[in-house]
């Protein structure tokens, strides 16, 4: 069966060539990041970034390891926030997107518009900040990393709705109703198992959203003990960046040559990315064709 549905050998080779070229385009810069983070500072300043630096050095990682306690704590916070955030977010998105995909839902277009509108207009940072800090008091709490802007995203709702509309046949749901199943039961027992590839995709996206986010920390945290890994990394980079771009009368007192070097910033970027590359493969088993298909037919 599988062999019938796939392309001829020539096509396969051509696709692998394209795939490998794209992989090089994606990986080469990342390797450049790694080699730069392992280059001695003087070499980096003199010769720029290189795949084969003249002088190697572990100094960047030694510098970071002095902050090991801070970094591990931040990793912990990130993992916690990512897991809790992703699960809650998926749950809410699922519950919101599924009814939107059903034709029986009253005010369906209005509700779809209600979601979509949030993608176009926003009140801006200051009103949002005032509400979250003034009314909900999330400033300097773990909620600050979880709730604002990331918990449910209109984009994911719309994607999930499209998926349901296209992939869950009405007949299937009708049949379940006739069997006397309630709506929640239908959603969790029938629709959900059929949607695992989509759920996995969204989990990946929402998870990446939480993992990579540093804006919530920037806006709502001044207590550095609550910083996520991206906040810690971003702080290291942005402090240096600021002092370099603002060489004014006031900051002329700062000895910029004592600031973390470029190599350290590269090492920081590497540290932020590696865990995702480790975790991502575990998601992939859900991207397998066939999970959906069997269910739909049955």
């Amino acid at each position, binding site marked *: 069966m599988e062999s019938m549905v796939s392309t001829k050998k020539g096509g396969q080779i051509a696709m692998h060539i394209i795939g490998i070229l794209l992989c090089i385009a994606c990986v080469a810069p990342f390797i450049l990041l790694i080699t730069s983070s392992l280059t001695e500072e003087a070499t980096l300043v003199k010769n720029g970034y290189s795949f084969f630096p003249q002088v190697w050095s572990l100094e960047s990682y030694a510098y970071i390891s002095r902050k090991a306690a801070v970094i591990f704590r931040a990793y912990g916070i990130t993992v916690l926030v990512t897991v809790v955030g992703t699960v809650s977010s998926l749950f809410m998105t699922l519950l919101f997107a599924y009814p939107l995909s059903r034709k029986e839902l009253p005010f369906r277009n209005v509700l779809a518009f209600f979601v979509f509108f949030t993608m176009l207009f926003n009140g801006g940072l200051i009103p949002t900040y005032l509400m979250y800090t003034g009314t909900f008091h999330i400033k300097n709490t773990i909620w600050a990393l979880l709730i604002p802007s990331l918990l449910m995203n209109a984009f994911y709702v719309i994607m999930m709705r499209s998926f349901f509309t296209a992939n869950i046949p009405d007949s299937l749901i009708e049949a379940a109703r006739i069997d006397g199943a309630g709506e929640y039961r239908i959603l969790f027992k029938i629709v959900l198992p059929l949607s695992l590839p989509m759920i996995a995709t969204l989990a990946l996206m929402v998870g990446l959203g939480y993992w990579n986010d540093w804006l919530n920390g920037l806006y709502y945290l001044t207590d550095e003990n609550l910083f996520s890994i991206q906040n810690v990394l971003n702080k290291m980079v942005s402090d240096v960046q600021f002092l370099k771009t603002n060489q004014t009368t006031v900051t002329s007192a700062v000895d910029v040559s004592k600031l973390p070097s470029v190599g350290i910033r590269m090492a920081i970027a590497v540290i932020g*990315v590696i865990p995702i590359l480790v975790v991502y493969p575990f998601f992939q088993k859900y991207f397998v064709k066939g999970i959906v298909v069997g269910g739909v037919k049955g």
Partner: protein
Amino acid sequence: MAAAAATSGRKKGIRNLKMKLALLSMMIPGAIYLIINNYIPMAGLQIAFKKFNYRDGMWASPWTGLSNFTYLFKTKDAILMTRNTLLYNLAFIVLGTVFAVAIAIMLNEIRSSGAKKIYQVLFLIPYLISMVVVSYIVFAFLSYDNGFLNNSVIAPLGGEKINWYISPQYWPFILVLVHLWKGFGYSSIIYYATVIGIDSALYEAAVIDGANSWQRTWHVTLPGLKNTIITLTLLNIGRIFYSDFGLFYQVPQNSGALSNVTTTIDVYVYRGLTQLNDVGRSSAAGFYQSIVGFIMVLVANLVVRKIDRDSALF
């Protein structure tokens, strides 16, 4: 007889109502969140029409009409920044979609599941790197004296070194390339997830009809992706007046010599307002960007609705 039919009708009605209520009840948590996270702060849209000050806050600051908007139009750069924003976004939408769809189809057609997995993971790497770091990487390639392109490609071929950061003619291509490179792994995931959701019975039928792989792609895969493509394109049209600040500001290193091809609305606003910390004017810019996007989406959605009702967003 008639009474029995009425009873069953009433029963059906009650069941229907129950179903509708159940469906609506599912949406409560999400609706509350959207109201809190998105709709309540929208009261802040009024700031665009006010001379905002911190002491009086959002409600008590004095109204100022449309004067917050004038700086977006009263400059020679108005046309330039609008043109840049629009053209880059158009390029991103068209090329980005084509590229991501092609990758998704390719991933689907590739037989070796091991290779498939490796490609997926590696394609995502650029997405994971922050724009600031991307700007370092781009610099590593384009630096005049130490850059990879000048030293390892152009010089060995006997060409003359190019001072990239003062040569605006190359930057439209560089920026589009960087954007595609950074985003294709992520957006192809969406399309790939849709492709693998397509009913394999359709493929089997196509094979039985003697379709080759191109024909299968054309007649089965692409129609299966149509909905997703339309949805994502509509969403992108809604943000057509926005731009990725990091891409247009950090990647070109804010080099003044490039500003004719790198100044988008967001960059202009950032440069112009930072020192003034003018909340009113920056809200006005956001409002302007949103309203244009809104109108564009309404029109586009209407067109889609006329052609194919099911593909429309709302």
